[in-house]
């Protein structure tokens, strides 16, 4: 690749000239783009950050200057025609419309999680990618974490035996200063963290056949939710997600041959016990570095898929699975009834 870069720059200076370089645009210059996608793109030799679409003028010019992006626009459609691929990091409820339009123009798309908010949008995206041959990859970067991949292998290979029950608990006091935070259309903790967590769940344990869903939204977006599921395999599980409190951030699996507990966010420590014989593996490096590494691996996979015209590690069909479950949960939501947060108590007081 270094030769390519050198060669191209002698023939015709300018970033677009490298015939092998992929021209990538970032659509949506919010927190995730600034912290992860743009830095990951910038460090690659065979990539040109050809464009940036961002509505906020200050952010747009600042990011364009910092990353040396030639075309910084407010409407992403102005970039169509001058890019090969795009990373879509706009607010959740816009994922589908933007990605679909790009895919229909044959542009390869890596779309942030959740892939979309409705299954029908996922289907349209998958169909568009199939008809134009564009790569559609979903930004579920936890699938690139070694400990989580190990968990997948341990389950798929039958190492742990038959899974009886699992308990996933992920929560931290919310600190993501996203512009789109709390937009009702974007959903709450389920659409946000749930996109990652339910993807891991479906990836590890297979499809689920029944579920109940409780959350604490009262006309706005939920800060806490609880899902109880039964999987096709017969395994049962609970998923608890929170933006209001710190939870262990682990998945604990109980299976016929032993147990496995793995950190699913940040530190991916792994504790296993096989036929009563315990083993613990501690993850290294700090969480921030790990997060950057995940985005790096995800980007590498996406670019490789574009270059080799092969499916990415997380395809649209895979991304669709968690969207389907999220949509079903929202449709069947029931209110959480926490003693200290009961509306009937208020009604009593208000009718005084």
């Amino acid at each position: 690749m270094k030769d390519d870069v050198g060669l191209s720059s002698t023939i015709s200076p300018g970033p677009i000239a490298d015939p092998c370089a992929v021209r990538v645009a970032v659509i949506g210059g919010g927190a995730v783009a600034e912290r992860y996608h743009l830095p990951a793109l910038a460090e690659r030799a065979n990539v040109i950050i050809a464009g940036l679409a961002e509505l906020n003028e200050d952010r747009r010019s600042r990011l364009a200057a910092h990353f040396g992006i030639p075309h910084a626009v407010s409407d992403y459609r102005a970039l169509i025609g001058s890019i090969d691929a795009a990373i879509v990091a706009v607010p959740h409820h816009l994922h589908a419309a933007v990605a679909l339009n790009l895919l229909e123009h044959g542009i390869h798309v890596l779309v942030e999680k959740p892939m979309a908010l409705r299954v029908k949008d996922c289907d349209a995206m998958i169909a568009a990618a199939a008809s134009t041959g564009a790569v559609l990859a979903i930004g579920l970067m936890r699938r690139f974490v070694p400990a989580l991949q190990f968990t997948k292998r341990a389950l798929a290979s039958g190492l742990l035996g038959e899974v009886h029950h699992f308990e996933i608990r992920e929560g931290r006091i919310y600190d993501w200063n996203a512009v789109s935070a709390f937009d009702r259309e974007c959903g709450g903790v389920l659409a946000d963290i749930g996109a990652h967590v339910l993807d891991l769940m479906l990836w590890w344990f297979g499809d689920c056949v029944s579920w109940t869903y409780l959350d604490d939204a009262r006309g706005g977006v939920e800060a806490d939710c609880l899902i109880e599921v039964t999987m096709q395999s017969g395994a049962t599980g609970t998923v608890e997600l929170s933006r209001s409190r710190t939870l262990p951030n682990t998945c604990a699996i109980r299976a016929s041959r032993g147990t496995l507990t793995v950190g699913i966010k940040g530190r991916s420590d792994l504790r296993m016990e096989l036929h009563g014989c315990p083993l613990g593996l501690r993850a290294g490096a700090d969480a921030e570095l790990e997060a950057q590494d995940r985005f790096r691996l995800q980007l590498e996979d996406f670019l490789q898929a574009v270059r080799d015209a092969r499916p990415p590690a997380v395809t649209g069909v895979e991304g669709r699975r968690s969207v389907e479950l999220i949509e079903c949960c929202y449709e069947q939501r029931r209110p959480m009834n926490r003693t200290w947060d009961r509306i009937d108590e208020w009604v009593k007081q208000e009718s005084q």
Partner: protein
Amino acid sequence: MSSLSAVRVLVTGGSGFIGGRVVARLAHCGASVRVLVRDVRRATQIARYPVELCRGDLTNAEDVARAAEGCELIVHCAIGTEGTDEDRRRVTVAGTEHVLAAAARARIKRLVHVSTAAVYGGNTPDAILTEDATPRYTGVPYADSKLQAEKAVRAAALAHRFEAVICQPTIVYGPFGRTFTTNVVEQLKSGRVILVNGGIGTCNAVYVDDVATAILLAATSDRAAGETFLISGPDTVTWGEFYGRYQRLLGLTDRLVSMTEQEARTFSDRPQRRRWFLVEAARELRQNTQCRDRLLTTADGRVMAKALRAVLPRFAISALKDRSSVPSTAHTRPAATTPLPLHRMPASRINTMASPSVVQTAKAERLLGYRPVYSFDRGMQLTGEWMRWAGLD
């Protein structure tokens, strides 16, 4: 409270403790709620309701004016919570002035100003406290800044002809509370807490939902205009019961230390100066046998102990051994635990804890129809359930 339905209301401090509960209740009553939010990251709880989050800073007059546009009611709960006492005072006072200017400009009908019972000075010696008492400056930054804000509210209401209602809650506790909930929990978990006069002083505790109810009544009641209301709970408990209940919720027994008012003051005022490092280290090692044993298993630790034994005269060694009061078989016995640190207590809290005054809510009951429904037992039970849920116990 159907009269709040479709009322356009601005809440400041809505991502805080009392404000958060007010936002929830207003939304539940069908009001059209706008919340001035400085840091959206703190808005997870109120975002559960259909409310408009309006990004802005209380210290920016323009932000506040923009947020108040089109509103007929303002509930002002915000106070300065960060930085030095002076920073907080500035936010509390200047913020209130911005709210008052915005209220005048938007021609709102009513402002409910959430103040505090602390404006009356804390250590009132009287058996009861009513709104007839005279608020006074006492040098306590928080209370003084709230009194200053109250005065500004009264003046502005007269000048700009909107109705101002001032609510003065007492000791507010409950889910997501800081001063009298999570801070108390953290203090009890990390050390010991002073109980002034054995905790016999009156704690005018009120559960947050009762305060929210009072604020809603203050927003709607015809007879409230221009009035000031003390807001407290239905039970009179002592500070001993208050802290004792938290201690019990945490499954602890030994965290409360009784002191007289004077002892508490002397202890809390004592200078922060520490002894010499080596003296402090030796003291720590003498008391903390676990730590000492561990250090003595290191190579240089052993060399140092050997060197000391060679250098020090015999009588000094035996004196040290006596003073350490730990037999040589210490490592086989359960290690003595270091006493937990005793938290200092700010003078204002010592005053409050020493006061016998029972706050009367007769005026709020008469004019607003306020009836607090959360007994101390019930309020604390719910708080305990929240603590468990939040992982604080």
